[in-house]
């Protein structure tokens, strides 16, 4: 048996454990960066470009500097430089109240020389497009080719040739990006809303030219990141500079419009695909030209084709630049796009060979494995969902409300990586576990406590968890669903070693070798002899004045990589209004060893609901003439409310033998594709682009009436 392993019969692991910081959050006592108050706190405000593309002629701060309450003002962009998107930061001010900071920001006089801009992909790819980006408006991306494409098409009995696309959405973190910065001489403390507290300290130090040891970042609570919060960004550096200039702590939290414009987005994806299928339902060929935009100078990659075996395939991708805020990682970056583009095609191909979509998918899956459980999930899920009640494409019932079912599969990585931890056991029985990770709402604080409590045989309440601070032992940023798989092994290793040190102290008292001791139910006992035991508190009295203090780090063997999932959706479509309503979702998902069943399930619910937004509601709309965002708010940038949430059935497949694997991202990949396929099944009309807004549904129905698109 390896020195470090997960217990065979856990007391806490994989059970529902309530979120450790739930009470603080529901009482409003959890202090987010947005809530931090410091003596003498003043407020920062950024002046941003209203133009999607312009040259800065001059920045005049003089009027702003004279405005009431203003303590500092700075130019962020130099004259002669360019702004590349609406919302590009240009200057900033700080004043004693937020209202006065806003007033002063309006007094900053920036002269712009507007330049030609590209408001969408079509404009950027047009032959007549102005050359906006150095090196061209598009850039060659991924190119791969496998097998023999002409052979593949020769074997095809049917070919589908169509264009599929997904749109740009923004992260809409409820707590906007920002921080509070306070200087003490040349030392900076930043309370920052981030997914990477240690990496933020590194980036502050680098940008400000101060030693990393002089920066202290704190993130006890943060209000959502979804891939967009991995550092101070411009607003963090501006905040630090304003605080330095004003010699006062500065709070600079972005407003909702800035959040939409300048804190990332999910890139668009489009692919013109030609795909072939043999008469027996075997996929034979896939030929795609794809493109997408990640905004001003950022890439737009995504996997294509997704999951299924196309033995002969070719894919050529181009990144397209437009004058809009740059993309950032967003919940399973690339996968929702690649999944949608492939999965709609899959249903069209299945119809060509008149196969059931589930059977068709199972026939074309890659080899099964512990990280590739699709065949099982398709079969089990179909049974659980009532797939046998699905009608063929096009609901034959009379009336305007049509119902349909759809299905989709996905995968994700979620592997662990280097993370350190520290554990203290004090002589009064106190246990403190420290790790420089952060809880972005996924429950990291809670799973640290669960793993420590499991290891020490204590209740969760007996463990004091310290996270969210850059002075703690190193851990990575919370991205790629890597946190659980990185942090929990580090905690397990560290606490196992700390417990061994305690056993060494207790062994003489119990008259047994340290190796023969076990910790369970708040006691330390001799293995196989529960009567020879001592209570945790009494055991700790033997520690003496110097506490047990152990450092440890992530080791291989306690975490895994690779998850798979399948989702089923049922939707109704009103063919008179084009309105789609999702009625049911079933999510079959694995994530290795489940640490906390409650918080793991919450992540799966959250992923599904996020993807309902992607499928039906949210859409970053840029005006095609001005290049400005039309809906940089939360009333026209639509997100689901309680009425829009369907019945969601989450089935988590606990696989302890695989170790811990992250679950933050995978459940959000498939939902939109499954919904779109349900809409297709309901109406018989194929909508090949997201979002499934009513006008698109109606247009697809009209097209279908006019003779169909296949």
């Amino acid at each position: 048996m390896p020195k470090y392993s997960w217990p065979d019969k856990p007391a806490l692991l994989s059970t529902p454990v309530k979120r450790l910081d739930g009470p603080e959050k529901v009482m409003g006592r959890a202090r987010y960066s947005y809530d931090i108050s410091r003596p003498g706190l003043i407020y920062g405000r950024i002046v941003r470009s209203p133009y999607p593309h312009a040259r800065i002629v001059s920045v005049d701060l003089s009027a702003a500097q004279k405005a009431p309450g203003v303590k500092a003002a700075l130019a962020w962009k130099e004259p002669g430089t360019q702004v590349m998107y609406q919302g590009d930061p240009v200057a900033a001010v700080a004043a004693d109240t937020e209202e006065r900071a806003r007033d002063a920001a309006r007094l900053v006089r920036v002269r712009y020389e507007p330049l030609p801009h590209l408001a969408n992909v079509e404009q950027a790819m047009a032959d007549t497009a102005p050359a906006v980006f150095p090196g061209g408006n598009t850039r060659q991306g991924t190119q791969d080719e496998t097998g023999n494409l002409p052979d593949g098409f020769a074997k095809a009995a049917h070919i589908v040739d169509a264009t599929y696309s997904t749109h740009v959405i923004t992260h809409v973190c409820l707590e906007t990006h920002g921080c509070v910065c306070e200087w003490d001489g040349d030392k900076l403390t930043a309370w920052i809303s981030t997914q990477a507290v240690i990496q933020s300290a590194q980036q502050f130090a680098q940008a400000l030219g101060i030693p990393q040891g002089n920066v202290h970042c704190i993130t006890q609570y943060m209000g959502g990141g979804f891939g967009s919060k991995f550092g101070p960004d411009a607003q963090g550096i501006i905040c630090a500079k304003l605080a330095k200039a004003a010699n006062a702590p500065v709070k600079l939290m972005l407003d909702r419009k800035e959040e939409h414009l300048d804190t990332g987005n999910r890139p668009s994806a489009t692919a013109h695909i030609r795909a072939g299928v043999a008469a027996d339902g075997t996929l034979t060929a896939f030929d795609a030209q794809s493109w997408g935009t990640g905004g001003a100078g950022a890439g737009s990659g995504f996997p294509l084709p997704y999951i299924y075996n196309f033995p002969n395939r070719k894919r050529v991708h181009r990144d397209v630049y437009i004058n809009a805020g740059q993309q950032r990682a967003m919940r399973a970056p690339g996968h929702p796009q690649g999944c949608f583009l492939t999965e709609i095609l899959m249903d069209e191909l299945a119809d060509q060979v008149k196969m059931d979509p589930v059977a068709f998918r199972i026939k074309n899956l890659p080899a099964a494995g512990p990280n590739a459980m699709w065949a099982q999930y398709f079969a089990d899920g179909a049974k659980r969902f009532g797939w046998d009640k699905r009608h063929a494409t096009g609901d034959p019932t009379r009336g305007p409300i049509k119902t349909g079912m759809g299905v989709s599969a996905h995968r994700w990585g979620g592997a662990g990586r280097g993370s350190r931890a520290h554990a203290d056991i004090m002589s009064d029985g106190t246990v403190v576990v420290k790790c420089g990770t952060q809880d972005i709402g996924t429950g990291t604080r809670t799973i640290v406590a669960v793993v420590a409590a499991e290891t020490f045989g204590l209740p969760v309440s007996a463990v004091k968890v310290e996270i969210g601070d850059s002075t703690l032992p190193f851990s990575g940023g919370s991205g790629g669903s890597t946190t659980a798989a990185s942090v929990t092994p580090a905690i397990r290793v560290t606490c196992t070693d700390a417990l061994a040190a305690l056993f060494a102290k207790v062994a003489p008292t119990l008259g047994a070798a340290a190796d023969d001791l076990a910790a369970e139910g708040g006691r330390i006992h001799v293995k196989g002899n529960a009567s020879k035991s001592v209570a945790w508190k009494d055991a700790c009295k033997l520690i003496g004045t110097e506490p047990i203090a152990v450092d440890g780090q992530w080791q291989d063997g306690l975490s895994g990589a690779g998850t798979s999932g399948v989702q089923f959706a049922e939707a109704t479509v009103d063919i008179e209004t084009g309105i789609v309503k999702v009625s049911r979702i079933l999510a079959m998902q694995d994530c290795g060893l489940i640490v906390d069943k409650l918080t793991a399930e919450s992540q799966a619910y959250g992923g599904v609901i996020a993807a309902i937004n992607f499928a039906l509601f949210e859409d970053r709309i840029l005006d095609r003439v001005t290049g400005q965002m039309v809906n940089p708010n939360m009333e026209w940038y639509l997100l689901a409310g309680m009425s829009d949430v369907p019945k969601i059935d989450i089935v988590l497949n606990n696989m302890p033998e695989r170790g811990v694997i992250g679950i933050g991202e995978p459940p959000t990949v498939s939902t939109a594709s499954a919904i779109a396929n349900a809409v297709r099944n309901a109406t018989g009309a194929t909508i090949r682009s997201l979002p499934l807004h009513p006008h698109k549904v109606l247009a697809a129905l009209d097209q279908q009436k006019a003779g169909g698109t296949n």
Partner: protein
Amino acid sequence: MSVSRRDFLKSAGVTSLATAVTTVAAPEAGAQTGPRVVGPGDVPVVLTVNGKRLELTIEPRVTLLDALRTRADLTGNKRVCDRGACGACTMIVDGRTVYSCSTLAIEVQGKQIRTVDGLAAGGALHPVQQAFCDVDALMCGFCTPGFVVATVAVLEKHPNATREQITKGLDGNICRCGTFVRVMEAALRARNPPPQSAIRNPQSAMELSRA
């Protein structure tokens, strides 16, 4: 004290809107009758928040949310959309839910204002708060204060609220993490809170001394 929209808008510098509002909202400044002109600049504002009197000196344009968050350090309710679209700032004013980001502090003087900060009595969670914890009806927690307050308001109005009534009551709140399913579960559960939680509670788990 009453304040005309016109004065607020003038002090906020939104002159184009102010012109449109003048004819219906207020007489000309200096007239003998009608609302008294206050501001621009700081004015005294007295609020009753969670049963306590709160004396502030703020500009008339300051919202109820900002007044409590930045002048009284009551940061439980959050600022998210700042335009009355997401519900994170939901407070209860004289028994009705309001978007405090879109309510002027100066307009709610003399009214009973309840925020999330005041719901837990003496450290004991309100049944709605307990239910949110029990079923994990929260993730990042930034929308949670608004949802908690909105749920409290629904259940005070309809102690045996149906699923439909709860949905209606919470439809003005948005969560980005996607906690809706469990928020509904929590709201239903809070109607008749169970005496003993079936789920492990870090707060009530067995004590070390009893171990």
